[in-house]
Every structure is written in structure tokens, then in C-alpha cells.
């Protein structure tokens, strides 16, 4: 098994990336986030061997944010309770089967005499009473955890608009000064420790934003606006994915969440504000011309050029993003070229058509796009 089976892997391990990621490949401490319930001790105490496979860039068992931490606590409460109940039931079942079992043909029927079931009836009442008590406990715990998920909501420091499209994510950072608002695609950068409000909407079908390491999922529903409130605490790179079936390429609708220090975050934001750099080399210049004169500019925009289309991801800072095609491929020049050359083979049914850029033009185009840091 490849990947993040080992929880000590660097947090920037996903996606595989040739160069350093914006978030930096930090060796994050294993459980930086301690939820009030002391999840860390739970982890240590539970001898479940499978747990080693539980951390990772898209795992609810490896919380990196306050909310995911609380939910993690809830999980361990539920797990412990249910495991205990299950154990009791199974033991009793074993006993019942072993007690007077027979391997033979039936002989006669046990008569039910008056009063014979009285003892069982008593235990049934105990059983029901126990069930009620346990359930009341769980309901209370669930309600408490649910409340704790939003208790920081009035301390919002950052609002991010997330719009689900078939099959990518449009991310906007609105600002009171509209000229400082930025738009990107398939990546969310968050400052560590800051309370963030994600505003979720969709224009086409229902999607669901799920970043397990930070929070549970919330649907993006056409005609409605939902909110998800979270605090990311541990720096690192996480993965989120659409969790509501949304059509052909539901499987390839992922996004990268980079949690970084406030300084790094601000630097990233400043970089995003700049329009696309002018092409430096002749090849890049030609690539820009190819972009503007071909089908690319019908859907994609690059700020600073005349291409301002907006039905597909904005490419102004394409080369700074960790993935292309909504988490389908890690970003690098080779993948980019392969993607442009035949997007329908990599992600069949997605809305990027086979444009058929001739090979020399393709090289130039990729060179230009690769300059859009």
C-alpha cells in the first residue's frame, strides 16, 4: 500500500509534487490538535492495528482542525460505547447457542409453563432501561459536540466562497475592498488558527464539500447558500473531495487545502492578487498567442490578458496550484501537456473538450501556462 499509510509521512506528501509546495513540507507533530476530550490519549489507548492506516490527507481520523477534532472525539465515544454493547450481545449470543444446542433432528417442543419467562422478562426490562440510558448519553454527547462546532462562529476572521461546479471548485476570497478579492480554483489556502467561514453554493447540481481533516461535509445546493465554519490548526496540505454524487466525474472533483502560517497565507494572497506576468520568452509569447486565439479563451480567463471568460477555472496563477483538473493530476508540465492534449481520456465526460492543439503550439502553450506562477 502506497501513500500515507505511515502517519509520520510529511504532511505535504499529498499530492506527489516535484517541487516544494506552497505550504512547505513541514514535519508536523503527529497530534498537534488536542480536542477537549483528549483524543490523543484515546488513540494511544486503542490497540486497533488498522489505525495505522488512518492518518492521511483525507481522513477524519487524523484531525487537523478544531471541528474535526471534536467530531473525532464524538467518534471515539460512539466507538467505545457501541463496541461495548456489541461485545455484550455477541457474548450472550454465544452463550445462548452453546448452552443447550443440538446437532440432531427435532424432538418435541419445550412447553412454556406459567412463569417460566419471568426471569427473562426482568432482564428484558433491564436491557431496555440500559438501552435508554446509553442512547440518552449518546444524544447528549452528540448535541454537545454539535454545539461546539459552531461556538467560534462569531469570531470569523476570513470568509471564503466555495462554489461547486461540474466538476471543479471555484474558490473566491471576497474582500471589503473588491479590488483585493481573489478567485482561484480547486485550492483553498487557510491561515492556521483563524476562524474561517466557508460560504457554499452551487449553480448546477448538488455537490458536497468534504475536507475530513478539518470538518464534516456540507452540501452545496442550487438555490441555497450553506455555510461551514472551521478552524484549521495544524499546518499542512490536506485533500477535500466532493461527497455528493454529481454526475460523470464525481470521482475526480477534489481540491487541495493548504493550511499555512498567517504570514505564508498573506504572501500567497498578495501573489494571487497580481495579474498574470507578461510572457518572458518567445515561446511563451507564442503560447500566449495560441491561448488567446484558440478555444482556450472561450472558457478560461487569465487576468491581464483579454481572456476573461469565467465558465472554467481562472488560470491567472495556474502554475502555482498543486493539481490540475480538480485534483486529477499533480501539477507539472508533462501532466499539463497531457491534459490539454486529450482531457477526455484522463477525465471522460468533463467539460473541457478535445481542442487538438498541434504539438509545437502545445509546447508553446504549456510553456506560457507554466509561467503563470
Amino acid at each position, binding site marked *: 500500500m502506497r501513500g500515507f499509510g505511515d502517519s509520520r509521512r510529511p504532511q505535504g506528501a499529498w499530492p506527489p509534487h516535484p517541487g516544494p509546495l506552497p505550504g512547505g513540507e513541514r514535519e508536523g507533530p503527529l497530534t498537534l490538535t488536542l480536542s477537549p476530550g483528549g483524543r490523543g490519549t484515546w488513540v494511544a489507548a486503542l490497540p486497533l492495528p488498522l489505525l495505522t492506516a488512518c492518518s492521511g490527507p483525507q481522513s477524519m481520523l487524523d484531525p487537523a482542525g478544531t471541528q474535526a477534532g471534536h467530531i473525532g472525539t464524538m467518534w471515539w465515544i460512539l466507538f467505545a460505547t457501541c463496541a461495548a454493547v456489541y461485545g455484550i450481545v455477541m457474548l450472550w449470543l454465544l452463550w445462548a447457542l452453546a448452552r443447550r444446542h443440538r446437532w440432531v433432528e427435532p424432538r418435541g417442543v419445550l412447553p412454556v409453563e406459567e412463569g417460566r419467562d419471568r426471569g427473562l422478562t426482568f432482564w428484558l426490562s433491564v436491557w431496555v432501561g440500559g438501552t435508554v440510558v446509553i442512547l440518552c448519553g449518546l444524544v447528549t454527547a452528540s448535541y454537545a459536540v454539535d454545539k461546539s462546532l459552531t461556538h467560534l462562529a462569531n469570531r470569523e476572521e476570513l470568509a471564503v466562497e466555495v462554489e461547486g461546479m461540474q466538476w471543479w471548485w471555484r474558490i473566491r476570497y471576497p474582500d471589503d475592498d*473588491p479590488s483585493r478579492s481573489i478567485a482561484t480554483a480547486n485550492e483553498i489556502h487557510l491561515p492556521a488558527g483563524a476562524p474561517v467561514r466557508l460560504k457554499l453554493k452551487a449553480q448546477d447540481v448538488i455537490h458536497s464539500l468534504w475536507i475530513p481533516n478539518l470538518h464534516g461535509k456540507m452540501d452545496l445546493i442550487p438555490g441555497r447558500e450553506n455555510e461551514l465554519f472551521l478552524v484549521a490548526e495544524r499546518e499542512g496540505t490536506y485533500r477535500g473531495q466532493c461527497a455528493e454524487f454529481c454526475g460523470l466525474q464525481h470521482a475526480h472533483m477534489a481540491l487541495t487545502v493548504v493550511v499555512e502560517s498567517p504570514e505564508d497565507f498573506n504572501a500567497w494572497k498578495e501573489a494571487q492578487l497580481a495579474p498574470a506576468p507578461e510572457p518572458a520568452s518567445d515561446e511563451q509569447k507564442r503560447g500566449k498567442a495560441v491561448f488567446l486565439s484558440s478555444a482556450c479563451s472561450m472558457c478560461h480567463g487569465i487576468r491581464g490578458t483579454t481572456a476573461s471568460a469565467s465558465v472554467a477555472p481562472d488560470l491567472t496563477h495556474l502554475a502555482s496550484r498543486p493539481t490540475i483538473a480538480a485534483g486529477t493530476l499533480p501539477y507539472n508540465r508533462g501532466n499539463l501537456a497531457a491534459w490539454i492534449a486529450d482531457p477526455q481520456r484522463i477525465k471522460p465526460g468533463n467539460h473541457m473538450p478535445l481542442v487538438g492543439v498541434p504539438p509545437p503550439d502545445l509546447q508553446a502553450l504549456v510553456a506560457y501556462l507554466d509561467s503563470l506562477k
Partner: protein
Amino acid sequence: MSKLQCCLLALLAVAYNILACAFPALAQDPAPPAKAIPAPAASPPDDGNWSMPAKNYASTRFSELDEINAGNVRDLQVSFTFSTGVVRGHEAAPLVVNGTMYVVTPYPNHLHALDLTKPGAPTKWTFEPKPAASAQGVACCDYVNRGPAFADGKIFITTLDAHTIAIDAETGQEVWRTKLGDINKGESMTMAPLVVKGKVLVGNSGGEFGVRGWVTALDAATGKIVWRAYSTGPDKDVLIGPDYQPFYDKEKGKDLGVSTWPPNAWEIGGGTMWGWISYDPELDLIYHGTGNPGPWNPEQRPGDNKWTGGIFARNPDTGQARWFYQVVPHDLYDYDGINELILVDLPWNGETRKALIRPERNGYLYVIDRRTGEVLAADPYFPVNSTSGVDLKTGQIQYNEDKHPRMGKVVRDICPTAPGAKDWNPSAFSPRTGIVYIPHNNLCMDWESVEANYIAGTPYVGANVKMYAGPGGHRGAFTAWDPVQRKKAWEIKEDLPLWSGALATAGDLVFYGTLDGWFKAVHAQTGELLWRFKTGSGIIGQPISYRGPDGRQYIAVLSGVGGWAGAIVAGDLDPHDASAAKGFVNAVSDLPRRTTKGGMLYVFALPSRS
């Protein structure tokens, strides 16, 4: 009252008038006039010509001729007609200069000179500018042209493919031609130029194509660009400099044309200038509006979107802005700010204010101090529900949260509509009554914002719109508004939206036309219908009045349905689609049954006494 008393009173009145003209101070100080008067410097006495579509720099569209009056107008009859040979929407005003009438047609923008001295007004010459045919694809609302302008022996016209052309008024020869915009970006030109101090002022159209709006001054003699002021972008492009002194704080700040937009959105942000310009020679300021921001979908352009949807006062020589007032910051409903600006001096709280009157798209009639840009009044002349009023302290319009457009959600019953309570079709102002005569719509709409995708040369709108009759069930109205009393004097309900201009005359008459082809004269005081005539096609043109070479008074108007309101007829649109013509088709789906295409000049006069 005896006859003698009458004569005495009349004499006194004449004397007072003479005194008032000779010594303005005398007239003002003791008792300000009870009604508004046109800005004196901008409205010279009528010479019987009609040399600019708005009649004068004050944009009064008032003729001092009174041969035709309320008493005899019922005898008015056709004097002659002229077929323009084009059957698109005729929004232009004919010009009459020294015995020649100049008529500019919609695309292909032919300019006809008619010799009024001869019976039947034969054609003197025709100028064909041959604009690019593909320009038809970037004309949002029919291939209209709003008229020529005359100055210094030249006729100036704009063409649909964004050229401005000067033609010798006598010979019909082209003097110069300047390309001002690129149709491949969606830029076109439809407005009537205004010539001020030897400069031809023009602006571009194409707010629905994501163009960047501007107003430009060309040297009337050579056609060279003297200055160009954009409606979006950094201050140096907008020509905002040290002279800029807006009244309200919200208009102050550096490079607001950049910072009130999302990054780079101002480059495709609209704010075109395709309507009317007025000029006050006394203050030496031109006044013009700026169009709607692009796209219509407001969610794609958070911020105030300066300098769209507002009014600029500029120095005509340098283009430097003096003041600006944003009527609709962050415009939500395509409330283009390009309507006419009537310059009047009017009594206000005991003093006389130099003001401009603007019946705005958003349903308010603004009275603004034209020296400073202070809003004196903004009163609804239409049952507005998209906004709840204008805060006169801050100048801020109060949007109604209930009617805020949302992506993917139809917001119902927004009044007024995208074409506004009143669109470009200009009002008239009569100094005799002190009343503004406003031909306008009575429509409401359903609106849904959708994602607009910018592709240069194609529309950039992002809204589905469906219009229908507003409160009362009628779709148009002709309103007489007293700007001093701040109330309606009277109103005529019209079944169809009104898309023609208005004309007021000293004969106490007001003329306007309807979409189904009626040309009407009503009494300026009461609104009583005195005369009407059915023309061959719907009227969306601007009526004028002139004194012919024979000394008689004539009324002229172009008939030819079209424009945004009449696109269903001019463009053969299909009424099954409620969103056709950006929703207007739904409001006038009965129009094809009530009128047909046409392109005809009608000139009326009283029967000759001979």
C-alpha cells in the same frame, strides 16, 4: 375684467419681462420666479431652426413657435413625407438648418438632406457611410441612431461601426471620418453627437458587450481626438484631476475606478456613454451620464463599480471632471445612467439654484445642483419598489433587499425594469408651464442572474429578464412633472410603453408618439388629447418643430418601430420566448399585431391659408 384692464396687465407683463431680461438681478432678487426656466445661456432664443436633437444646450426640446397651438392643432395635417428606405427602429431627430432637413437613418446610417424650399422637399443629396455590416451583431437594441448634429456648416453623425463622420452640410461630401472603437470588442456608436466649442462630443455603446465606456471630444475641423475620458479605470484614464470636486464623500478617493471593482474587472466593466450631453456655457461645463456596469449580473462585480451609472460634469476643453454623482452605485438592474439632463434655473427654498433635471431610469426624477453635484431632490415619478428612496444627505440610493437579484433565483416583480421607468427617449421642458414632460414606461420585471461568460465581441449580460405591465396594467405613461412643486401635474396612461421623445411648443402643445404609430398632441397644461394621427409604423423617434422657408411652423417626426421596445417587430423576434430582446418581447408580445416595420418621415403643418 374690462378690456382695458387686460391691456394694461399685458403691458405690465411685457415691461416686466423686458426689465427682467435686461437686468437679471432685478428679476431675481425681489421675487424668484415661481417656476423653473431653462438655463439662459444654454437656451438662446429660437431661430426657427432645429440644429441639434435636443434643440439647445439646455436640452429643453422646446420650440418657441406658436403658430400651431391648442386652438388650431386639430387642423394639423401632413405636409409631406419621406421614406428613408430602412425599416429598422428610427430613434433619430431630424435636423433643420436654413431650409434643409437632415435625416439620419438607422444602420446603414444613410444621411439624407431634403430641400425644404421646394415643394415636396426633394432630396438634395444622400450620404452613405457604408458601415461594416457585422456591426449589426454588436448593437444591443436594434441598429438605431439617435440623430445628427450640425455646426459650422458640417453635419456630424456617428455610425454603428463606431466611426464619427463629418459631412459638408451643403454638398454632402465627407469632410473627415474617425474610427473611435473596435466592433470586435463589441463597441458601437448610436448616439447623437453634441458640438461644443468646436469639439464634437461622442461616446460609445456596447454596455452589454463588456466594453469599457468612454466619452471623446473630436476636433470639429479635423476629426482628431482632443481628449477621451473613460468611465472605468485609474483616474488618469477617467480624466479626474485637481479640478475634481464632487459634492459627496462617497465619490472621493484615488483611483476609485479600479478599487471599486474586482481585479481587472474594470477593463470590461461597461459604463458606456450613448445618451445625451448637455452644456452650460455660463459655467463652461458639459454634463453627461455613464451607462450601466457590465455584466448585468451584479454578483460578478462586487463593489461600487465607479464610475458607471452616474453623472459627470466636465470641462469641455480638457475633459477634466468637475464633479461626479453616482446615481446607482453597484447597479443591480441595468439602470443605465445616460438619460437627458435638462439644465434649468429654478427656485429652491427661496433662492434660485442652477440645476439639472434628470428623469432617471431608476424611477426617480433627480434635481441636482449643476455647479456642485448636490442632489436637491429625487422624487419617484413611477411606482418604484426596487429601491426605497435616496438619502439626500449622502446621496446614497437605498436598495430594497427583497428585490436584490440572486444567482439562480428568480426575483419577481421588480419595478422599474431594466429599460427603466424611462429609457433614453428624451423629455421636453416648457418654460411656459415650467413642467417637464416625460414619456416613459410602466413596466415591472422578473430577473434571474446567471453566470456571464466574457468572450470579446459577444454579449456579456448574465441575466434572464421577463418584463410585463406594471401597476395599473398599462405599459406606458406620459407624465407632466412640476419640478418646483415636486409632484405630478398630470399623467396620461398609455397602453404600450412609450419609446418616443417629447416635444413642447409655445403653442401650449406637447407632442409624442406611440409604439403602435399614433402621433399625438396634448395640451401642455392639462394633458387633454387635442389631435392625433396614425403613422405607418410605430414611433420611437424624437419630434421636432421648425419654421419652414415659407415662414410657417412645421412639426416633423420619424416613424419606424424598433429599438429595444420595438425589437420584436424590427427583428422578427419570437414572442414564445419571454426572455427575447432581454425580456422586452414578453411585455409587448402583442406589438406585431398592432404595427409593422417602417421607415418614414412625416412632416405636419396647418393647412395653408391660401
